């Protein structure tokens, strides 16, 4: 594994290795000194073209807990805002000797392009409407922690599938890990070729909920409403929101997930979000462990360690 660009690039063995490594590294978070020397002397650049404080600080915490030097490069107020191209930025990072680049970008495929232009490892931290593989890994990790396994679990992913990088990565990774995914959304928010994806599809949340072990709610952006993907926020919420009544129809063991940031009252009600069966806060904590594992596996093997 040289880069992490797509969740689909991971074999079952590789994905399992990331989750197992994350489990070991999670112990560090419980210590009084939350630090390992593993990546000392390595430089990780967080190259963020989109505002995403939570993902950036998650990667930053992950890199720092393993003693890497972290450079945060935000597009705003940098050479990028003066019109520098991604390629020129890549060549600059290359010249500075970045061992790893974590990139968040609004353009699908930006991480793939970057990987052609730098020698270091590239981690896709979300590219447009394409993928967000570390989110899928932390979701898988969270499910495995709560449920004890992934193989054979029934996972419903609900919301704006069409524009969701989280959904794309989750479908690929959960399929690799043996879970059975059902996508639930109004037809307007599903890709036209979704029937070719390795998952089931339903337009009816009420029909899917009783048969789900995990329900993953996705954020629905307000601008989708203006583009006529659905008539009103109220109607969306009525048909696809997870409220207390629907929550009660889920099996007792089933959990509720959300990648955040969530819109309470829209896709998820407050009582559901704050329920003990909601994993939303755990997902954030697990995000650091999983990102530590990814950086460790990509950067510790080769490259310019201390004194090199």
């Amino acid at each position: 594994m040289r880069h992490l660009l797509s969740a689909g690039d991971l074999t079952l063995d590789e994905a399992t290795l990331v989750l197992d490594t994350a489990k070991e590294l999670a112990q560090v978070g419980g210590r009084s000194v939350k630090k390992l020397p593993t990546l000392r002397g390595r430089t990780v650049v967080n190259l963020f073209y989109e505002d995403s404080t939570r993902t950036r600080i998650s990667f930053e915490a992950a890199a720092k807990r393993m003693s890497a030097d972290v450079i945060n490069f935000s597009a705003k107020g940098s050479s990028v805002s003066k019109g520098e191209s991604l390629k020129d930025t890549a060549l600059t990072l290359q010249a500075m000797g970045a061992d790893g680049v974590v990139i968040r970008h609004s353009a699908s495929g930006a991480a793939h392009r970057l990987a052609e232009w730098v020698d270091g490892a590239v981690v896709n931290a979300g590219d447009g409407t394409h993928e967000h593989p570390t989110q899928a890994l932390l979701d898988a990790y969270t499910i495995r922690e709560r449920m004890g396994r992934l193989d054979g679990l029934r996972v419903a992913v609900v919301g704006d599938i069409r524009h969701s990088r989280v959904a794309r990565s989750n479908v690929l990774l959960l399929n690799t890990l043996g879970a059975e995914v059902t996508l639930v959304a109004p037809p307007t928010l599903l890709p036209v070729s979704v029937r070719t994806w390795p998952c089931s599809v339903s337009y009816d949340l009420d029909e899917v909920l009783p048969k789900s072990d995990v329900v993953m709610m996705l954020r629905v952006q307000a601008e989708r409403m203006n583009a006529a993907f659905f008539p009103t926020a109220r109607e969306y919420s009525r048909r696809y929101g997870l409220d207390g009544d629907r929550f009660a129809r889920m099996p007792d063991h089933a959990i509720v997930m959300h990648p955040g940031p969530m819109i309470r009252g829209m896709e998820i009600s407050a009582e559901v979000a704050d329920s003990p069966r909601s994993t939303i806060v755990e997902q954030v904590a697990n995000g650091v462990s999983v990102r530590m594992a990814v950086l460790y596996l990509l950067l510790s093997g080769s490259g310019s360690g201390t004194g090199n």
Partner: protein
Amino acid sequence: MTNTTHLIRDARILGGERADILLRGGRIEAIGPGLAADGAQVVDAAGAVALPGLVDLHTHLREPGREDAETVATGSRSAAMGGYTAVFAMANTDPVADTAGVVEQVWRLGREAGHCDVHPVGAVTRGLGGEHLAELGAMADSAAGVRVFSDDGMCVSDALLMRRALEYVKAFDGVVAQHAQEPRLTEGAQMNEGVVSDRLGLAGWPAVAEEAVIARDCLLAEHVGSRLHICHVSTKGSVQIIRWAKSRGCDVTAEVTPHHLLLTDDLAESYDPIYKVNPPLRTAEDVEALREGLADGTIDVVATDHAPHPSEAKETEWCHAAMGMLGLETALSVVQHTMVDTGLLDWAGVARRMSETPARIGRLTGQGRPLAVGEPANVTLYDTSAERVVDAAAMASKSMNSPFNGMTLPGRVAATFLRGVPTVLDGKIQ
């Protein structure tokens, strides 16, 4: 003045009989075996196929406005290298070619360059804005004698405006060349909508956005009794609709690009925008339907949609990259590869689709003529047995955005003659 008398030795006329061709005074003076040189400069064709000089109905020469990408001079050199003796230069320049002044400027630049005839296409609407008709009559009456009108790059999406344009150009035997793209269905579109776009998370450009406009415009053209030309047909459904419209008697012609005859949307998996083009690359099923449509005459011509862009417009994220590909210097090779070597077309069929018919659609009288005594000496010699690795950096175009770069393609343009004057000899620009 250079010697304008040339004796082409041992060419295969339209891929058939072997003969010599004597070009003198801008005309074909004789065709036959064993012609005497008689002071003419001898060009040994060595069995190359002789075609009438190619005519491209759809070229972007970028001048005025984007001389960093291409100029009339570099673009017409590129055309000559591809075997073309005439090109139609699209109107989406800056300023837009929507007045007699701009079309005359492009026409004059073409004459000065002298590598091929450059016929400006006039914009249908002012500034390609899709709201008001440009002064089509003034462009038709100008020195450039415009007969082809197109908002290419933009669709004339307003049905009433399209109807008026179709009707109005009848007064000077013009034709409207439609870039069929329903704008609302393609807002932000990045590539063909389907399995690949869904996986890559790139906004889709659905086939229906092209097909719906073609269906509408065929019916409009039929209703008002006008000629209609469809630019760069890219889908199976479009081929079916045009076939149906022709069967009803609609006076519609259509073009396909070389890249749509060969390349498919899965190339976008690299996220390399060298494969980003409008209309987008489609599926293998579409490619097959386009080849069949070109073979059976549903699609009348091959047109390149040669679209030069500087490297910085392509070395970027896919969604920020410019749309378009070079085409002039690889068109004949791609047509040989996809249509001739597959047995779908013979060389006479290629001549019809790449010279005779485009000239007729554009109402050119001195181009696209038969290879016969007394005809203008516009001749392309094409060595079908050659093989080459496409090298975009070595092209005559000012830009390098060829999707065929690095591919091995058959054939090589050995020589191009424009009214008896060689613009290319031994594969080199003159």
